């Protein structure tokens, strides 16, 4: 135990690597495999043909059988190499296949068809990224509709949330008024009420407001968050009051001060909150599951969940859809990961 801890706490000296450094790097590299591996596997799998997906044991990279164009045949033929018999070593295209026997032609002699048993043939395969799984999403499912629903909810909810939360934060940080402490306590109070424990009455209110099975039923209840108010208030407090006073001398209205001075100055905090809001809304699941029950209203998350729930899981489409669902978030991650980390650490991720 003491040894284990000595490596955790010791810092590396100059020059040679201590054995504890090897263990540390070993752990971290194992971490890379464990954290990225599953997602990479999903990504590679999504480019496999349905046949290849059924294959057990699976292969790491996507493969597909190559095809051969032979004179006199309109369609390309599946390519095989002959493993025994007269034509051994030759590449042939399969023209017909029935009950363990195949009829093949050689591209060098397209008029002569030869009959062989299947065990005399071995398929020629090459690495090929199949895109059918993706194109199928657009043809067979209403993918664009789900994508649009998710995007609409995310964008609208984020914009509304940023506006409302920054207005409230402005009032709570820059005005002295009676009841300010009470309002602050109320905001803290809402921190204690996660959506998960008020599902039933929330459902009633949303239904009564006519927002059941409407995207607004997801957008509006999520538009005010205590976390957002706190985050922005902490930031706005640091903006000096003198700037406001100067603007008031110039007869700027309070609203103008808010959107012309406070908002631009709070841009870093607003950016952090925007990233968080986008993430929350895009990944949201339980509340949309309750409010949106018709397929045409589904968000991507709901669509993914309902497709996998069907008796026969359609993995080819499901894999492609999963990739497309995580893609926007992965892109955000790559470009903005520094901000995300600080943002989440400062809000407690709520």
């Amino acid at each position, binding site marked *: 135990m003491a040894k284990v*801890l000595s*490596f*955790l*706490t*010791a*810092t590396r000296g100059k020059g040679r690597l201590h054995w504890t450094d090897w263990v540390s*790097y070993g752990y*971290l590299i194992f*971490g*890379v495999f464990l*954290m990225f591996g*599953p*997602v990479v*596997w999903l990504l590679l*799998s999504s480019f496999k043909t349905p046949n290849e997906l059924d294959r057990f*044991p*699976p292969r790491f990279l996507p493969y597909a059988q190559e095809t051969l164009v032979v004179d006199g045949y309109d369609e390309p033929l599946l390519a095989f190499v002959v493993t025994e018999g007269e034509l051994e070593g030759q590449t042939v295209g399969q023209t017909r296949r029935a009950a363990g026997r195949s009829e093949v032609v050689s591209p060098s002699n397209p008029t002569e068809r030869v009959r062989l048993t299947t065990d005399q043939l071995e398929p020629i395969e090459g690495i090929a990224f199949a895109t059918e799984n993706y194109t199928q999403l657009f043809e067979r499912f209403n993918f664009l509709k789900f994508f649009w629903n998710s995007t609409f909810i995310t964008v609208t909810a984020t914009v509304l949330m940023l*506006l*409302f*939360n920054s*207005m*409230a934060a*402005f*009032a*709570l940080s820059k*005005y002295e*008024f009676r009841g300010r402490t009470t*309002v602050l306590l*109320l905001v803290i109070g*809402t*921190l*204690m*009420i*996660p959506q*998960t*424990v*008020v*599902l039933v*009455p929330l*459902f*009633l*209110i949303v*239904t009564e407001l006519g927002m059941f099975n409407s995207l607004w039923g997801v957008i*509006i209840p999520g*538009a005010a968050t205590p976390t957002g108010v706190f985050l922005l208030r902490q930031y706005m407090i640091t903006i000096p009051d003198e700037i406001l006073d100067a603007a008031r001398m110039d007869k700027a*209205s*309070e609203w103008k001060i*808010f959107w012309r001075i406070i908002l631009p100055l709070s841009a870093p905090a607003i950016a952090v909150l925007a990233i968080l809001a986008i*993430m929350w809304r895009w990944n949201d*699941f339980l509340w949309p599951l309750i409010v949106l029950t018709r397929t045409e209203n589904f968000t991507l*998350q709901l669509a*993914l*969940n309902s497709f*996998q729930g069907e008796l026969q899981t359609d*993995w080819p489409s499901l894999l492609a859809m*999963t990739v497309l669902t995580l893609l926007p978030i*992965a892109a*955000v991650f790559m470009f903005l990961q520094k901000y995300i*980390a600080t943002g989440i650490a400062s809000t*407690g991720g709520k």
Partner: protein
Amino acid sequence: MLKILTPMMRIIEVPMLALQRKIGINRLAWAFLLPNLVLFGLFAFLPVILNVFYAMTGGDNVLLADRPDVGMRNFAQLLDCSNHFDPNSCREDKFWRAVWNTIWFVVLQVGFMVGFALLTALILNRDIRARGFFRSVFFFPVLLSPVVVALVWKWILQREGVLNAFLDWTGAGGINWLVDAQWAFGWSVFISVWAHMGFYTLILLAGLQAIPRDVYDAALMDRASAWRTFRRITLPLLSPTMLVVLILALIKGVQTFDEIYAFTGGGPGTATTFIIQYIYERGFAGAPRLFGLAAAASLLVAGVLVVLTLVQLRISKENADG
């Protein structure tokens, strides 16, 4: 974006200016607060109050006026057990199964997650090359949606998945992971730790980096052993952060639903049904919709969460003050 925003803001300015002239600058604060407070009122405070009414009424009607008053009977039904440790002896056995599943899940998940987060944070806090890269590697799954997390692992764990292929190859033979109750539960804990660990690692790492270097230098001067330094310096100085992490993890753990619901659907049987799923199923998924039971169960969960949140706020305040 700005092109739409600017005219919008100009339009809002007209009524706001009129209001400002009428009520003065300081009272204008309420106008700024209004949209947020209306939303908080409608979607946070009002539901809390209504929840109590739902918990005390029966039937499957969503309109409160049409619901018969049943007093405390919903709570009685939930809590009626001859032996609370044995769900089979309970009237609402599914509730107690969910309760015990949740308790076990939270204990295991929080334990493993905070343990591994601490280990990872300690390693990342060493003099590591490419620390930023490794930090974001562990953080990456935090961004994935619960459904995506569930599907990524379901694809690996399915009967003809890559894990079974590997086990076949080593000669151990495959296992139908999500069909076996204990394996399904174990994997639920695992994917939950996998998905959320990075977040807590980040907080703990920040806590570790806030410990002043000279404390360690002093320990080095005194030739304190590494173990002693860890026990006497790192752990005590990190304990406020640890406590916050622990409480946050507990609050979230109790509310676990999304990823496990998409992962196992609560099964096999009720092996991975947790308390929020119980509420969802009683209130929304099954017929008849037993809103009363769902609301009563929500209130019990809310009680636990309020206590945890108060503890958390208290600790955060002490941290900030001290």
